[in-house]
Structures are given as structure tokens and as C-alpha cells.
């Protein structure tokens, strides 16, 4: 009987792994910016979910729980690494320089804007990048991003605003004070970003 139950549990979890792994990998890659670390993050996430599967399986959205684990794991890992290496004070682009992903870079050679955006994204602090990824890749509302990160909606808004301002500044389309940037920042702060 125990084995029967274990088999059912295992099958349910395997279905979860099958269905969610690719999306977790993509999110992790945008968070970690490094393929090897991406796999490690997703593997650790799946192991943590497995250890708590009895509770996770009963949740309304097990995938959202896994994503929350992953995002916070990625931020913790990046912050620990940053403390060790001092990379947060090294400025933008350090990640790309330190751990080049030549295949992705080659694909993007002809896309200047994307290349610039990628370079700046890579240099954003982990938490700031997480918010950008959750808002503009996962398309989550600010309240949900705040719940994932355990912070206030206001913090999400202000952090996203700073990250976006930095991206735009580097693109040369809106230094601080530029009317277009001000408009964008205000829209973001109000949570009324037009899609």
C-alpha cells in the first residue's frame, strides 16, 4: 500500500517536472545569466519542491510556488556571489564579461538594441533584474511580484523604475530628465503601464 501511494506521488511529481522544467529553466537563465548556474538553480528548486511535495501538490498553483523558490534562490545565490567577488561594485556588464555565452551573443550580434539591453540587464543587481524578468518576461502584476519577493508593491515599482531607467539610459533613448523617460517612469510607478 505504501509503495502504491509512493508510486502515485512519484508519477504526480514526474508530471510536474516534465511540464515545468523548461519554463523554470528559461526564467532561471534570465535570472542567473549563466547556463551552468541555471541548471544548478533549477535542480535545487526541483529538489526543494520534491522534499515538500506533499504540501506543494495540494497548492492551487504548484508551479507558482516553484517559481517563487527559484527566484529567491537565484537572488540569494547572486547576492552571495556578489559579496564574495565584489561584483556589485564592478558596474554593469560584469556578468557578461565574466561568463560569456558565446552562442547567445553570436545570435544577437546584428541586433544592436537587444545587445545593449542584454548587456545592461546582465549588469543589473539580481533583485532588480528579477523584478524586470517577473514583470516583463513572466508578465506578472506588481502585487504578485511583491508577494514572490516578500516586499511591498511600492518597492517593486521603485526598483523596476530604476532598472528601466538604467536600461533606457544605456540605450540612449532617455537620460534622466528626458520627457519620454519621465512619462515611462510615471506610468510604471502608477502601475498603469500600457501594453
Amino acid at each position, binding site marked *: 500500500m*505504501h*509503495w502504491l*501511494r*509512493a*508510486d502515485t*506521488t*512519484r508519477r*504526480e*511529481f*514526474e508530471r510536474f*517536472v*516534465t511540464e515545468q*522544467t*523548461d519554463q523554470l*529553466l*528559461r526564467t532561471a*537563465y*534570465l535570472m542567473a545569466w549563466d*547556463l*551552468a548556474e*541555471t*541548471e544548478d538553480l*533549477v*535542480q535545487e528548486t*526541483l*529538489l526543494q*519542491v*520534491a*522534499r*515538500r*511535495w*506533499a504540501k506543494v*501538490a495540494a497548492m492551487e498553483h504548484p508551479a507558482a510556488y516553484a517559481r517563487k523558490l527559484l527566484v529567491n534562490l537565484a537572488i540569494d545565490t547572486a547576492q552571495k556571489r556578489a559579496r564574495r567577488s565584489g561584483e556589485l561594485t564592478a558596474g554593469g556588464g560584469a556578468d557578461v564579461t565574466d561568463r560569456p*555565452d558565446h*552562442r*547567445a551573443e553570436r*545570435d*544577437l550580434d546584428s*541586433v544592436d*538594441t*537587444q545587445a545593449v*539591453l*542584454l548587456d545592461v*540587464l546582465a549588469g543589473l543587481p539580481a533583485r532588480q533584474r528579477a523584478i*524586470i524578468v517577473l514583470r*516583463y*518576461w513572466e508578465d506578472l502584476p506588481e502585487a504578485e511580484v511583491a508577494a514572490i519577493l516578500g516586499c511591498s508593491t511600492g518597492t517593486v515599482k521603485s526598483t523596476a523604475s530604476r532598472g*528601466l531607467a538604467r*536600461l*533606457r539610459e544605456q*540605450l540612449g*533613448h*532617455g537620460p534622466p530628465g528626458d520627457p*519620454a523617460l519621465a*512619462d*515611462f517612469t510615471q*506610468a510604471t510607478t502608477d502601475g498603469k*503601464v*500600457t*501594453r
Partner: protein
Amino acid sequence: MNTDEFEDNLRETLAHRAAGVPATAGDRLRQRTYLPRAHGRAALATAMTAGAAAVAAVAALAVTALAPASSPASHQSHTTQAWTVSKESNGDIVVLYWSLRDPAGLEAKLRAYGVPSSVTVGHINPACHRYTGPILKHGRMGGGVSAPGSDRPSRLVIDPSDIPPGAGLQIAVNIPYHGGVRGLTGVVQATPACTGR
């Protein structure tokens, strides 16, 4: 560039970057053995957690682990220049290897010791599939990989009683991995094409 254009660009950039994850990454993660804790049965949960520890210990034999063995095993030893396999008095099979130039020989030796095995170098045996049955749980399986260039051997301890009936052991080393190599071990379904029986 207005706000909408900028946001669209940002989304496209993120999507492009996310698409850079190779499919093999997902395949590798799906192939690994995770042991979900079962609903509300402490005894079962304990057993499965111990089983998870056993498998995780074996899976931890990625080349990033640096734990060289201190001395060769002493009982019933079969020695070549590349590796030794010995059976300890408690039944454990101990593999020490300096290199895996002869994976087929090691595979045959392990099989001769009663461990259904697949040993490959540079690739994962495509005939092997993850074992999905109940995992046993003595937890002595494990080991460490010596540092590159070290004259000390890497060590792998196999507790045959941790390998369930119908399962076998897969050992794959020097798997290309993001510009480097990794080792991979795990419990797989025993089949003639994978583990010999």
C-alpha cells in the same frame, strides 16, 4: 522610442535570451531522479528521504566534487592501469579510478560483481532510462572525484543493496558540459541494452 516600443523591445530581448536555453538542459534535469515526499506517512517519508540521500550522494559525483580517495581498497582487487574494483567485507563494491580509458572493462567487472551497470565516457548511454520504481535506502552509495591532474584516484562506493530489483547503475563521465565536462551517475532501469540484464 516611446514607452510601448521600449517595453516591446524589452520583452523581445528577454524572450530571445530565454530561447538560448538548450533543450539538452531540460533533458538532463528530467532524467535525474527526484524523490518526492509522499503524503502524510512519516515512515515512508523517512525511507524515501534516505533513498533520496543515497541517490543524491551518487548523483553528487559531478566532477566539481573534490574528494580523492586515500588508499586503494584491499579485498578481491582487480587492477588495471586505469581503475580497480574491489568488494569489501560488508558487500560494498569500491571503484577507484585514475582514468576511464577502458569503460567497457569496468562495466564488465561491475556486472561480474553483480551490479547491472552501464559505464560510458563522453556520452550518456541512450538505451538507459531513469528508474521509476521504489528506491531502497541504505545510503552508503557515494564517492568523490579527484582533482584534475591528481595522482590520487577518484572513488565510487556502490552498495548493491541500494540498487532495487529491476534497476541498475549508470556511470557516465567526461560528459561535455558548457565548455567543461561533468560526471553523472544514477539508478536506471535495468535492461539488456543498458545494464546488460
